[in-house]
């Protein structure tokens, strides 16, 4: 495969509030290719949003990217490490919202209630492009049309609270695309929406990706959305990427005990009515009480006493594009007895 456009290596982002340390992202590595979708999936608090915010370098205080590389291949072929850029550098501002567009989990909090959606779009366009107001407005209308908003010439002057949840999410996507990014990060873009509206938004993302050869990072807790959208998948648990692989491998030949258990426990429209679901014992530990060793060990059915609770499992390559972080697999990638 061609060079990745974005390559994250050993990313660690910690919060150090007074109460202790939260290893929100604790060694995440993955690659993203043009025209492809990387799905990041995991349960709440596993570090999906902090991973996205780390890539954009907008982690809230007292959080900080502590180590690792975030390598972005720019249009001219140069590779920059976003993790090393000065927080106030012009280059970082160029990348954020310019080369890397993003759609956040909370559409209401990311859209201003005081400015029309047109003004917000025009501002985003003019931040990264030297164009006249009139041209920016024309381009804003064009963007609204592209994301499927009916009567964009009129909607451009409306406020976000006048729009339905689905239309608001379309505006968010238009905003993210304003500067023609090559990478789009979408953090739970459909979580608050009805299935019907979700289907529309996922279709929209797919269409725009095809038209622009966009590289997409799609963050969700919904395995159905991942199956529908992703080319490759990173599964996270308590800050760790525990398994990465092609979407078909993750769903049909998962190797990490957490991925396996998660897939067994999801309800499906294909299930037999009134059938019991497989469960994962216990619940996700509190972020301050991360278990030692493999963080999944208190819930793991394959737990090896004295090993899994003693040290952190290494990452093992099972195939060129399939990696797992678990003691069950030896250096050669074979499963221990």
């Amino acid at each position, binding site marked *: 495969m061609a060079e990745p456009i974005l390559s994250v290596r050993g990313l660690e982002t910690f919060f150090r509030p007074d109460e202790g340390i939260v290893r929100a992202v604790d060694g995440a590595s993955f690659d993203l290719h043009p025209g492809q979708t990387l799905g990041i999936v995991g*349960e*709440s608090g596993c570090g999906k949003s902090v991973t996205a915010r780390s890539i954009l370098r907008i982690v809230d205080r007292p959080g900080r990217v502590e180590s690792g590389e975030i390598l972005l291949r720019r249009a001219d072929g140069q590779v920059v490490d976003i993790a090393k850029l000065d927080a106030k550098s012009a280059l970082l501002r160029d990348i954020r919202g310019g080369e890397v567009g993003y759609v956040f989990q909370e559409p209401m909090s990311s859209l201003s209630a005081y400015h029309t959606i047109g003004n917000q779009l025009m501002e985003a366009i003019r931040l990264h492009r030297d164009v006249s107001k009139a041209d920016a407005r024309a381009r804003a209308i064009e963007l609204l049309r592209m994301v499927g908003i009916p009567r964009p010439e009129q909607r451009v002057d409306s406020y976000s609270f006048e729009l*339905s*949840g*689905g*239309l608001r999410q379309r505006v968010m996507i238009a905003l993210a695309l304003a500067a023609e990014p090559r990478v789009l990060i979408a953090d739970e873009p459909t979580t608050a929406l*009805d*299935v*019907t*509206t*979700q*289907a*529309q938004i*996922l*279709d929209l993302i797919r269409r725009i990706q095809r038209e622009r050869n966009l590289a997409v990072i799609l963050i969700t*807790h*919904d*395995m*159905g*959305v*991942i*199956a*529908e959208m*992703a080319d490759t998948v990173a599964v996270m648990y308590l800050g760790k990427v525990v398994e990465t692989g092609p*979407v*078909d491998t993750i*769903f*049909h030949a998962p190797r990490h005990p957490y991925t396996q*258990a*998660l*897939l067994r*426990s*999801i*309800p*499906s*429209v*294909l*299930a037999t*009515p*009134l*059938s*019991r*679901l*497989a*469960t*994962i014992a216990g*619940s*996700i530990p509190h972020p301050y009480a991360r278990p030692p060793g493999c963080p999944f060990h208190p819930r793991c059915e394959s737990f090896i006493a004295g090993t899994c609770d003693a040290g952190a499992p290494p990452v093992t390559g099972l195939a060129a594009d399939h990696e797992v972080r678990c003691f069950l697999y030896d250096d050669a990638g074979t499963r221990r007895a």
Partner: protein
Amino acid sequence: MSAQPPVLAVENLKKHFPIRRGVLRRIVGHVKAVDDVSFAIARGETLSLVGESGCGKTTTSRCILRAVTPTSGAIRFRSGEGRDVDVAALPRSELRPVRRQMQMIFQDPYSSLNPRMTIADIIGEPLLVNGIGNLAERRQRVAELLDVVQLPRAYLNRFPHAFSGGQRQRIGIARALALNPQLIVADEPVSALDVSVQAQIINLLLELQERLGLSYLFVAHDLSVVKHVSHRVAVMYVGRIVEVAPTATFFRNPRHPYTEALLSAVPVPDPRRRAQRIVLEGEVADPSNPPPGCAFHPRCRYADERCERVTPTLQPAAGGSLVACHRAAELNLVGVAAA
């Protein structure tokens, strides 16, 4: 179903909220949140209510519990002692004994528990309020309820903030069970939970139903969850039920075009089954100004001229379904089926 009378029979239920404008707060229109809804739930049965946001699911459940007073219609409830009452017509003063037997489980386990009360007090509150037992008996009952929802008795004197979402939902379920209800109305009870915890709560609800013969009205938007918990499913669109069917039939042989579109939009957790979906154009109709005829017609790919004029009513169809669509008999709609 058996010949036993249903636990709950909702008949022609309507709830219209007035829309007021201006300084004089004059009524300028009505939101027809629930508009002529009828269904019944048998003992030990789960009926799920599904549909897009704003279709009237929560308002229907609030009417049943008389958290809001219906505009019209009857809500016949058969108590454990075999007495029938119309909840919609009861004076407020006579609601308490009925409310004991219908309990609610909420979506948000975080906000529905009082942070300053211990687990023992939260679960025991309905007993205390209804003057049931002395202190020792109530303590004993609370401890048993913790066993039922599979929480350790050691948690009795802790406060809700110390618990995870799934544990809080178990506490909410224990409280709902305190008075031995006949019917549980659960409004999105698992949608705020993580997948791995969601599965535990779904199993618990199934188990409690088997053990205690509970009836559930299960309000949900996640059709995958609905497939696991329901005996029958009812779909609402803009305040009306457009289809009711036994669960297997509902998913395999949908009879209403809206059901077909809903099913086709559900993401299936299998990348080998990426399908061409029916994308519903447009938005849900405004319940204060629904389209004439069939309210779904502006979004329906099968609509004809009659659909714009005549409102279809629920009619029996093959497989035990009831469906409100003029073209139900001639259409061959696509559901979901295992590969």
